[in-house]
């Protein structure tokens, strides 16, 4: 039960962010929801790579411990974090520009493209 606790937390985080994505109208709040979604996915990746009782996956630091935590998901997470940082920065910059052009950041008032 406690072993699966982390996945429950991840599922909750995902649910929170997806609900927020659908219900929120403020662009900043949508960005926050996206960040939470990204964080929960990173959580999932790290949790998948964990082996109970595992050591640091570095050859000379692991010592006699035969079980190591998987390093690949951690690399994946780092890459995903870097990508998330870039998109978050770009997203907030775009929000600034949207505010400049439209005078609002409510998503239902930004509707020039349709049809």
């Amino acid at each position, binding site marked *: 039960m406690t072993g699966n606790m982390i996945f429950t937390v991840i599922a909750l985080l995902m649910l929170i962010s997806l609900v927020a994505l659908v219900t929120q109208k403020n662009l900043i709040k949508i960005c926050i929801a996206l960040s939470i979604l990204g964080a929960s996915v990173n959580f999932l990746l790290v949790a998948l790579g964990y082996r109970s009782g595992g050591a640091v996956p570095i050859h000379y630091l692991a010592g006699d411990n035969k079980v190591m935590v998987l390093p690949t998901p951690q690399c*994946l997470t780092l890459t995903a974090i870097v990508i998330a940082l870039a998109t978050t920065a770009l997203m907030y910059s775009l929000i600034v520009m949207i505010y400049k052009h439209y005078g609002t950041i409510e998503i239902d008032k930004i509707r020039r493209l349709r049809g």
Partner: protein
Amino acid sequence: MNQHLPALLLALPIGGAFLAPLACSLGKKLRNIFYLTVSLLTLICAVMIFLETSAGKILVYVMGAENFALTLPSGMAFPVRIILEMDAFSGLMVLCVAIASFAGALFSVNYMDKFSGLKRFISLYFLLVLGALGMCATGDLFNFFVFVEISSIASYGLAAFWRDKPESIEASFKYMMLSQVGALLLLVAVGTLYGKYNAINIGALASMLQTGVLEKIVLAMFIAILAFKCGAFPMHAWLPDVYSEAPSGVTCLLVSVSQASFYGLMRICFTLYGTNPANVTAAWILITLGCASMFFGVMMAVIQHDVKRLMGYHSISQVGYMLLAMGVGLYTLSDAVLLAEYGFTAMKGGIFHLFNYSMFKGLLFLTAGALYYATGTRDLDKMGGLARSMPWTTVMFMIGAAAISGLPPFSGFASKWLIYESSFAIHPILPVVALLTSILTLASFVKVFQTAFLGASKISLAPVREVPVGMLCGMGLLSILILFVSFFPNIFVSGVADPSASGLIDQAGYINAVLGGVK
């Protein structure tokens, strides 16, 4: 040097993107030379890869190993490094992207000349090329995600390049929101597969994929995300916005980039899942998505007045053809008799159409850009009689429009014919929908031709002249390719579509190239 081609293919656009700020400080002329040279070198590299792979060879390249062919270092059972793997289908996709990027670069040199910030533009352009090429070249799922993200981030930036236009910012933000959710779900799917099989290499995963609920869920996620990325019907909302608001040279490339997502979808369905029973459902999903995209895309295109937006909706309907064809191919994959009977024909048609689509859609977007450049508007109601002042653009538009509507001598007809005759075997309603779509496409393009190029010249358009020679070169390159494929479809089908389709169904060959040990 030939063995290093896959790495060079990615290294060239990376180098181009990183050197662009330096090259742009050297003046206008050197900047343009740099921009075109790097695009041309990438194209040459892509052509060489295409020639190698279409002969049936699978190129494998291991990044950072002592030897580029060392897929399994020191006796490990599974590949651990970043591996690039390209078969005939990847070679074809790489060729499409490289041609589109070169044509877009030729077009952009004149088209973007009067704007500031070109150093960022060129950097982002090469990053977009890199993302698309990487998606076609990579052999593992996580790198596929990384390249998807590189191309997405570059395309957000390029869609919002005209930042003083509220519409382009809005389009970019809309695309970013949807695309980010999609990309994160893609990461969840990759992570889930990793959690079960401890591998992210497509070949290694394919060799041990079992049948189960988890695999079905993951496949559903992949289909949803990648169909969204290539603009299939229920998830199409971003596509006309982004295509119409990005600068035209970029739109020409974006068409190929979304085809790279389509390539990813096919790679996952055919190579990763192969004869897995989950694929029968997947095939029906693809067929349904294809029919819906075809029909609704063209229905929405007919009522548009903005020329680029109209073409954006046509993109949705053309993607539908490919989804339909590949769905038919996937449906027959586990049955050798049906596959030989009509499935293989459908896949050939789909791949042929994919190449044609990248070419004529790129050309049409470039002509739309030329219209915008010359007249300053995208609204069809404000155009008229442009055939007199822009003869070259008119001719090239006619070539593109004839090809997309599938008029008999042109390339679109050959590929659509293959799709009609093979999808008829699954259900007779499918070719009916496809034919109807083709007719509506023709009607819609006749409307554009009539309003923009024929009729009386408007007084407001009197000073309009033919566009500069660089833009004509970009369009001319694509037109010549379309004409070549139109006149020799047999050569193309037997020499290109056939090896690509057989590469796609040859799951064992793809797996062996990675897990077969050192060659």
